């Protein structure tokens, strides 16, 4: 007779398998029903109404709309964040801590946190060159001017953002203040001694 198919100690080839007909236990049906019920609840909470504008973690279109900034301040901060991200973060870093040999930090910087924006709006408009001390450390770098790249609204927004994010907390900057600074034509970049002569 044919020996075992695998090793010598095996029995002969067995017959084809047969199948019994026991019923599906009720508890398994209940588990299925329970999971199905759970899935419907989950979908009603987390599927965002099957709307293409709703992404996790929002739960409905209304939720997304509610979370969109409506106040002027909210819109301004969003605009400032966007400008900062696109332009300033390359040197000052996304976390505002700056980088040696590239840019000084903005977090907790006495220049940024000055009572008024006089100095920093001029830095952003006209650029800065030469030695400058920030948070007790000396830097001697060059920052390009941005007055031709952004209008007053955007510069005011990014200054407000920088003054009110991370650990910074200071007054917002108005576009009119930036416009006034822009009116004073200043050929070439600012320098630290010049800026220190003006009121903050």
């Amino acid at each position: 007779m044919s020996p075992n198919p695998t090793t010598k100690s095996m029995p002969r080839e067995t017959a084809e398998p047969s199948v019994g007909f026991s019923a599906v236990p009720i508890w398994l049906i209940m588990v299925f029903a329970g999971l199905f019920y759970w899935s419907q609840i989950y979908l009603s909470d987390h599927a965002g109404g099957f709307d293409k504008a709703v992404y996790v973690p929002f739960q409905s279109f209304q939720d997304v709309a509610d979370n969109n900034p409506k106040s002027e301040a909210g819109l301004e901060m969003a605009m400032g964040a966007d400008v900062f991200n696109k332009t300033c973060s390359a040197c000052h870093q996304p976390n505002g801590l700056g980088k040696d040999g590239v840019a000084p930090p903005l977090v907790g910087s006495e220049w940024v946190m000055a009572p008024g924006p006089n100095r920093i709006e001029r830095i952003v408009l006209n650029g800065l060159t030469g030695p400058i001390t920030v948070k007790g450390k000396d830097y001697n770098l060059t920052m390009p001017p941005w007055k031709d790249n952004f209008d007053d609204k955007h510069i005011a927004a990014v200054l407000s953002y920088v003054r009110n994010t991370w650990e910074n907390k200071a007054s917002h900057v108005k576009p009119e203040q930036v416009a006034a600074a822009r009116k004073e034509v200043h050929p070439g970049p600012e320098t630290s001694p010049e800026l220190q002569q003006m009121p903050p």
Partner: protein
Amino acid sequence: MNSGPLLFLGLFVTMACSWLTFVMGPQLQIGGLTTTTNIIVGAIGQDYPHTEPGAAHQGAEVYRANGCASCHTQQVRPAALGSDINRGWGIRRSTAYDYLFQEPVMLGSLRVGPDLANAGRRMDAAAVLTRLYEPRAITPGSVMPPYRFLFDTRKIHGAPSPDALQIPPQFGPPPGYEIVPRAEALALAAYVTSLHQDGYLFEAPPPPGKTNAPPSIVPVAPTNAPAK
């Protein structure tokens, strides 16, 4: 269930459910998206997203051919789901709009290396090229493989080439030689530096009251001691 045709029909219906949900559904809903002007803030008068220059498209081919997506993702998760935004990997989560002009879309599924969705905001071309030639020159102990075959080692004749890499001497070529990136390396660098997901969208607004700026934490300095 003994009839072949009935079995086939059942399988067809089941497969069709799945196909409709994950293939046709998304295609019908977001497969026809075009640029949006529905951005909260952004450059004045511009749609989002914009197409990238040709070198970036060629670089995407190099990215694809070398399987970069097997270690790098290109998707930023919302703040509620992970620390992506906190790490400075983006100011907001990624949405369908961010990938409209990418071909192929290489989202990746494993983070052996950092997320690259906004790499263009963190690195310039020189940094990318140096990292491609010798990752350990920038990140000691990195497991990223060096891509030396994307570069040429050339003898310096007269003045060094303006394209030559500036690398620390211990990783650099022997004296009298310079490392010059090939066209593929330059294209790849153009691609990586073109990756950014800007502006807040309706679908991905800033959280109310605060923005998504990464906290200004001083990171724990890397040492050779095993992290706790």
